[in-house]
């Protein structure tokens, strides 16, 4: 059986591939080796011309104001880190491939050397990777890149005192996180804004989920005439672009000319013994918050409604028949059959609704720009963390460093809470799913 005299050393093949391509040459796969080597050479040239200066700039963030633009250096350094990471992945791939091929040579005594069989092999084994590469490539630059820049900025002093290129940005270590938790002015704003963000997330999301479920259950009864029309109406808040409705609501809730004060309350006041004075929707924090929660409920319930309607239609009818025979009433049927079925099927989506509202910038910003009033640190009384971050980075005296540090902290909160919730709802437990 042993018709080839020399065994390949798996170790040696792997070690040689630390310079991608060499391991493939050692295995006798010329075409693959050349390909890997070309990538390596390209990377080395890139590193020598752009990469090394980029890394240096990233470490110093510039030494001479005006000549060195710290922000550009930070961004270029981040890009270089991503490029280097991609090359390291190629290296890992090359090492794995070289070891794999060497092992194959030792056991089977043959390997593919032709270009054709190589292509076929990549197509066959690498198909899943080929299909996901475009997704990862775009995410690398559109998601990973900004996340990394945010992370790095949180450790600098990039604020309105240090606007490049006139001034340099410097690394300051954990200073920003320290300020955020121990400097009273920042801490008070952070705590106030975080408090409202959590209240907002819980109330708005729970309201929209509750209204969605109730509407789905009510509208799904068999006797209803005109079901289709109601369904279409209930979809409208989702179908009309959100910025249109939010800006309209911003006018509708206007204290002096808005429809709520002028028309709705006027109509309600016709009811005997009801007298509601004009409500300061846009000027009183409490009423602005109330309005925001109502509007988000209006905007968000159709999505839940559609999904729950789908779940309801998939619940087998015999369950209700059995319950009827046992003499269950409407409420019992709802709490014992309907609700558990809905929650079982849609809990993960509900979690994403909570994270969505936690970061629901557009409604806060477009309705009343986070106002009214001011709770310090540049935040208005209805600003959630994300709209506060927006103000910190776009205002007249930007504080990118603080915005980044806040982003990092809330990301950690959101990620850990949702991972915990996902675990609890067993979204991960099914192997089929993961």
């Amino acid at each position: 059986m042993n018709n080839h005299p020399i065994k390949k050393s798996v170790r040696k093949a792997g070690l040689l591939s630390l310079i991608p391509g060499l391991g493939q040459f050692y295995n006798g796969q010329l075409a693959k080796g050349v390909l890997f080597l070309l990538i390596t050479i390209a990377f080395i040239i890139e590193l020598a011309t752009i990469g090394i200066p980029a890394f240096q700039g990233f470490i110093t963030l510039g030494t001479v104001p005006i000549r060195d633009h710290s922000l550009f250096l930070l961004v270029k350094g981040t890009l270089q880190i991503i490029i280097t990471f991609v090359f390291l992945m190629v290296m890992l791939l090359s090492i794995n491939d070289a070891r794999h091929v060497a092992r194959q040579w030792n056991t089977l005594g043959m390997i593919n050397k032709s270009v054709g069989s190589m292509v076929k092999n990549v197509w066959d084994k690498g198909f899943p990777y080929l299909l996901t590469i475009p997704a990862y490539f775009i995410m690398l630059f559109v998601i990973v890149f900004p996340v990394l820049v945010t992370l790095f900025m949180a450790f600098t002093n990039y604020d309105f005192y240090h606007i490049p290129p006139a001034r340099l940005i410097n690394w300051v270590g954990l200073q920003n996180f320290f300020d955020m938790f121990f400097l009273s002015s920042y801490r008070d704003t952070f705590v106030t804004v975080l408090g409202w963000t959590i209240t907002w997330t819980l109330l708005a999301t729970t309201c929209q989920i509750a209204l969605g479920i109730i509407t789905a259950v009510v509208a799904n009864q068999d006797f209803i005439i005109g079901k289709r029309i109601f369904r279409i109406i209930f979809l409208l808040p989702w179908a009309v672009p959100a910025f249109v409705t939010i800006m309209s609501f911003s006018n509708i809730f206007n204290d002096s000319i808005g429809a709520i004060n002028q028309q709705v309350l006027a109509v309600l006041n016709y009811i005997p013994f009801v007298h509601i004075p004009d409500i300061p929707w846009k000027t009183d924090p409490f009423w602005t918050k109330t309005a925001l929660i109502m509007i988000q409920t209006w905007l968000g319930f159709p999505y839940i409604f559609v999904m729950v309607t789908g779940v309801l239609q998939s619940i087998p009818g015999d369950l209700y028949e059995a319950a009827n025979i046992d003499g269950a009433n409407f409420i019992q049927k709802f709490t014992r059959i309907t609700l558990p079925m809905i929650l079982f099927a849609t809990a993960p989506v509900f979690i994403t609704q909570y994270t969505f509202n936690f970061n629901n910038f557009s409604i806060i910003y477009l309705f009343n720009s986070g106002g009214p009033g001011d709770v310090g640190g540049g935040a208005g009384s209805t600003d959630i963390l994300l709209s506060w971050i927006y103000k910190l980075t776009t205002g007249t005296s930007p504080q990118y460093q603080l915005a980044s540090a806040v982003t990092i902290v809330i990301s950690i909160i959101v990620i850990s809470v949702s991972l915990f919730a996902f675990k609890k709802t067993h979204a991960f437990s099914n192997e089929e799913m993961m």
Partner: protein
Amino acid sequence: MRRLLRNQKSNKFFGRFFTYLFLIVLSIIILYPLFITAQSAFNVSNLAAFTLDWHMQWTLDNFRQLFSQTLYLTWFKNTIIIAISTMIIQVIIVTLAGYTYSRYRFKGRKNGLIFFLIIQMVPTMAALTAFFVLGLIINGLDQYWYLTLVYVGGGIPMNTWLMKGYFDTIPRDLDESARIDGAGHLRILCQINLPLAMPMIAVQALWAFMGPFGDYLLAAFLLRTPSNLTVAVGLQQFIANPTNQNISLFAAGSFLISIPIVVLFFFLQRYFQSGLTAGGTKG
């Protein structure tokens, strides 16, 4: 016995009465603000109040003004271009990735899925400046392709996850038998799975298409020239200045972009149920 029967009957009556009452009140709450917006689009300009007006004067002046004196048509065209390219690129990428995560078992799969889930929870708001600088470096500022790529990238994680959930509900037996008959990777994907995933693909296409119409933030940040703006940014300018709001123009512009989206929405509506319940609920 008769009393019990009558009791049941009146119970049933009350049940139906409250059901219809609920549905009708909710419908009014939904339609009322929408009617106000739609109506102010046809109202003679200077609005004294933003309310439902029973005896207002109807006019098309707002639309005339929109077309002749503002860049609305250009903004509309820009948005369509961006929306269609976003839709095509995003749907292709998301479908391929979702399919892969559903059908193939490969090294790094689980980590990839968790990565998709986590990375989309980190807000990129603070990094708007980073997008701006990156745009300067690769010459993408004020360019549609750059904005399109940013939209596509932002949509990938969540939608891949939903897409995978949908593919999970398509039985695998078909793949197996096709493979035994000698079908390759591409044939199994294109001839068996893609046609079955059409409802979800339609939903995804609609969402991707709607995104650029609804986004205000990124477009306002990355587009500069007035004639390059998208509809959302352009319309916002009409009411951005509190002392000089032009609500009628805003309403007219909003009315015009809402119509096609709402129509698309209802055409694709029947896909929603299957797309959402299958794709969304699993995970």
